[in-house]
């Protein structure tokens, strides 16, 4: 063997080690020596790395299986005019592409990115009442980057027939739980602006975009969720608890195709929708930790009223931002009262994060490329809060949110010590607040007006994430050029429609829950294994991502499953009180000037022990009249039926046959002569307790499927 070929062999071996990340420092030094010493070796190095990188980039996908086996010395083939599909990279590419498109849109060029089919033109109304602007797809034809090639030629899915002609309802139901839940919905939702896209159009668009991506990635969506799985999911997502047994049975029996759509409508009108939405938003807005300045009941009353009337989201946000007055009389004031400490730093940060999906609080993250931008954003926004104070009202325990006239813009020092003035502003719009009597009113106007799309985008992203298990960005509230969304076209479209609908939150939920993606099972298949954000980083929505129940969902679901509160029919406030007390064992405040808190709940030993031995479970297994367990023990029926009922109450499904066999083998079932006698007692009753305990403690119980 010649010296050259020896060296060549060594080089290849070193390059192989490099490709597998196994090269140690000595070997790296040797590699350098060879590469720097010889031009041929340098070429070889680059060719090898380029091969490695291209394989990584293209993930070797998109190659057809048809060709013949590669033979040593085989004849050369003409290069094909076709590049491997970018596979995994498409996501990033599309995202980049869409932000490119966004830039185009920004200056008013009407053009929709990568929209494959011309379709009907969609007229979108500007909520401010400006003339209707038509969007055309044809403008896109002049731009070809090679990316459009990957888009399928036609939209694959046609909207499901039952969706096509649905009228959106605004009726309310009779069950009165919340004092505020029966107020008729506000006008904007009863009379949706006629120019907004129809449910079928919007859902069709989302479905086609997702389907196109599944094709690009060569994944197949999981099958449609079973009725039991879907019902459990929609209940937990919309009303915040599992479905009661009766609802499950009725739903399983129903054979009509429109039944799922009807459940969505029914649940959106359920008082528990109001309750669940209130829980979610009060946790986000004022946190779970009690604070002296916050009158939680008054705040929750404000939120309940808003969700019950389905007030437009921009109106609700505007009121939260501009609120003033006493916190017991005007519940909305509690949001800012919770965050006014430390020069309103938390107020600024949370306003940007929750409503605009933007993180501005991190002004000292030295390594952040957008740091100077953030600092400016932060101070521009905080200027609006500078004259806001909280004032205790003597002898009442109440606080007032007062806001004086604007004095002068604050100054701040950047990290180099240079002092800047911080003119009030939001997202590039500056405002002269001089002489303004109510700076926060100005802010509310800016945030909720149509010049800033972030309010809508943040809400769409958050709602999508809440329902599908992942948002278009991670984290859901850190959007911006540095963190492009996974599905920019879907996010754009839903945001536009959300604005056009008059910020109708219920409609937004209805759209998302009507998508094909939401209706799929959360089981993964061999053909969409890569769609797993935690392990692959991909978010394709080719199956639903499971979510752990929140503290409140778990508590409420335990009550539905066990009905232990039936004996003590409680009012709204005391139920809420019990729930707050129960969850307080999981909530911890860091007591810093940023008002951050932690919930030590997700899958900890503490939680497991609470489920195994806690008082609520003990109560659930006692035969308290009115409870599910009491009913199971006392109702007529076979012993097998009793196990079925317990499974249904806890998991919203019937046990599989193998599960039933395994469980009944552990029970002292009675002979057929006694088998239908009730009540059950002795060892069998204890055995049934064990069954119920096991179902309630299972991983399946705490999962939103």
């Amino acid at each position, binding site marked *: 063997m010649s010296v050259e070929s020896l060296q060549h062999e060594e080089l290849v071996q070193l390059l*192989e080690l*490099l*490709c*597998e990340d196994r090269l140690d*420092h000595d070997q*790296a030094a040797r590699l350098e020596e060879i*590469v*720097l010493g010889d031009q041929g070796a*340098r*070429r070889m*190095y*680059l060719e*090898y*790395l*380029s*091969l*490695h*990188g*291209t*394989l*990584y*980039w293209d*993930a*070797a996908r998109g*190659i*057809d*299986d048809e*060709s013949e086996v*590669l033979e040593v010395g085989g004849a*050369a083939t003409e*290069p*094909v005019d*076709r*590049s*491997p599909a*970018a596979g995994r990279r498409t996501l990033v*590419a599309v995202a*980049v*592409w869409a*932000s490119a498109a966004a*830039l*185009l849109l*920004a*200056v008013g060029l009407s053009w929709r990115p990568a929209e494959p089919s011309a379709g009907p033109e969609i007229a979108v109304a500007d909520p401010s009442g400006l003339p209707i602007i038509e969007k055309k797809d044809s403008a896109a034809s*002049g731009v070809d*980057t090679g*990316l459009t090639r990957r888009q399928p030629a036609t939209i694959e899915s046609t909207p499901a027939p039952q969706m096509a002609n649905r009228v959106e309802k605004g009726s309310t139901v009779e069950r009165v739980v919340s004092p505020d839940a029966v107020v008729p919905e506000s006008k904007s939702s009863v009379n949706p602006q006629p120019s907004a896209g129809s449910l079928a159009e919007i859902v069709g668009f989302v479905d086609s975009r997702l389907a196109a991506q599944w094709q690009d990635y060569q994944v197949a969506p999981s099958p449609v969720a079973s009725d039991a799985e879907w019902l459990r999911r929609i209940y937990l997502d919309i009303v915040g608890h599992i479905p009661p047994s009766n609802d499950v049975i009725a739903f399983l029996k129903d054979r009509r195709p429109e039944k799922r759509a009807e459940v969505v409508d029914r649940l959106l009108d359920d008082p528990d929708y109001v309750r669940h939405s209130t829980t979610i938003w009060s946790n986000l807005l004022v946190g779970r930790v009690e604070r002296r300045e916050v009158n939680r009941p008054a705040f929750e009353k404000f939120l309940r009223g808003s969700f019950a009337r389905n007030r437009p989201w921009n109106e609700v946000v505007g009121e939260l931002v501009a609120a003033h007055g006493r916190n017991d009389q005007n519940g909305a004031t509690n949001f800012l009262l919770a965050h006014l400490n430390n020069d309103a730093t938390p107020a600024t940060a949370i306003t940007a994060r929750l409503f605009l999906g933007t993180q501005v609080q991190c002004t000292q993250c030295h390594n952040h*490329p957008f740091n100077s*931008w953030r600092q400016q954003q932060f101070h521009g926004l905080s200027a609006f809060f500078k004259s806001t104070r909280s004032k205790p009202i003597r002898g009442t325990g109440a606080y007032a949110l007062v806001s004086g006239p604007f004095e002068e813009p604050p100054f701040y020092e950047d990290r180099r010590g240079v002092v800047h003035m911080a003119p009030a502003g939001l*997202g*590039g719009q500056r405002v002269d607040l001089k002489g303004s009597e109510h700076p926060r009113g100005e802010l509310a106007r800016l945030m909720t007006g149509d010049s*800033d799309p*972030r309010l809508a985008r943040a809400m769409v992203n958050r709602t999508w994430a809440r329902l599908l298990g992942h948002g278009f960005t991670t984290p859901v509230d850190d959007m911006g*050029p540095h963190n492009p969304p996974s599905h920019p076209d879907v996010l*754009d479209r839903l945001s*536009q429609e959300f*604005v056009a609908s008059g910020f109708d939150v219920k409609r937004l939920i209805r759209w998302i829950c009507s998508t094909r993606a939401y209706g799929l099972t959360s089981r993964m298949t061999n053909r969409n294994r*890569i769609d797993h954000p935690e392990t*692959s*980083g991909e978010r394709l929505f080719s199956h639903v991502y499971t979510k752990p129940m929140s503290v409140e969902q778990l508590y409420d679901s335990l009550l539905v499953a066990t009905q232990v509160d039936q004996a003590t029919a409680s009012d709204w406030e005391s139920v809420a009180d019990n729930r707050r007390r129960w969850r307080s064992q999981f909530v911890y405040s860091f007591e810093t000037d940023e008002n951050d808190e932690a919930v030590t709940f997700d899958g900890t030993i503490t939680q497991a022990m609470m489920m195994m031995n806690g008082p609520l479970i003990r109560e659930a297994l006692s035969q308290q009249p009115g409870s599910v367990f009491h009913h199971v023990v006392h109702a007529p029926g076979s012993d097998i039926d009793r196990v079925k009922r317990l499974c249904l109450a806890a998991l919203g499904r019937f046990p599989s046959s193998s599960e039933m066999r395994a469980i009944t083998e552990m029970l002292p079932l009675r002979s057929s002569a006694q088998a239908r006698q009730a009540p059950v007692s002795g060892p069998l009753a204890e055995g049934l307790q064990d069954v119920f305990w096991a179902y309630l403690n299972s991983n399946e119980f705490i999962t939103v499927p």
Partner: protein
Amino acid sequence: MSEFRISTEIDGAEATMPAAGPREEFIKLFTKYQRRVFLFILSQVPNPVDAEEIHQEANVIIWRKFDRFELGTNFLAWACQIANYEVLKYRERQRRDRHLFSDEFVRQVASDAIEQADELEQRRQHLAVCLSKLRNKDRELIQQRYSAGESGKSVAELIGRPINSVYQSLSRIRRTLLECVNRQTQAQATP
């Protein structure tokens, strides 16, 4: 409401926007050269995960500076300059004793990579052909190896083969591909 104004506040509120034509052109170039910029970075930072991170940082800067790019000049060279700077920044952040390669090596490789960029791009097209000629079993293995987050080691665990045998197989396949690409390139060069 169709002009959904996406904020372009990257450089503060005043980020200036060039007129419509050049912008489209810029976007075209930007998209077209994504992979090649990545490969350029990878030649200097041979770990794809790290290279990807640097690439993302570079993309942000490229976007930010797009009004400074003169159309008609060499986009790749311009973008690689930015990428190169990001590589240096990355190396600076890393401690010296953790550098796999010396500064001299990185400099040399970077300049070679720009010189050979077109040639390497051509090879990539041949690679598509060569991949399609692999035996199914080999192609599956290489696909598994290069799917997101995998490595030779994790694939070995996944398919339950001894790790060294997987390394050997991957090495054999990569060599085969390299030789195949070489042949394709030569065949094309000598009509």
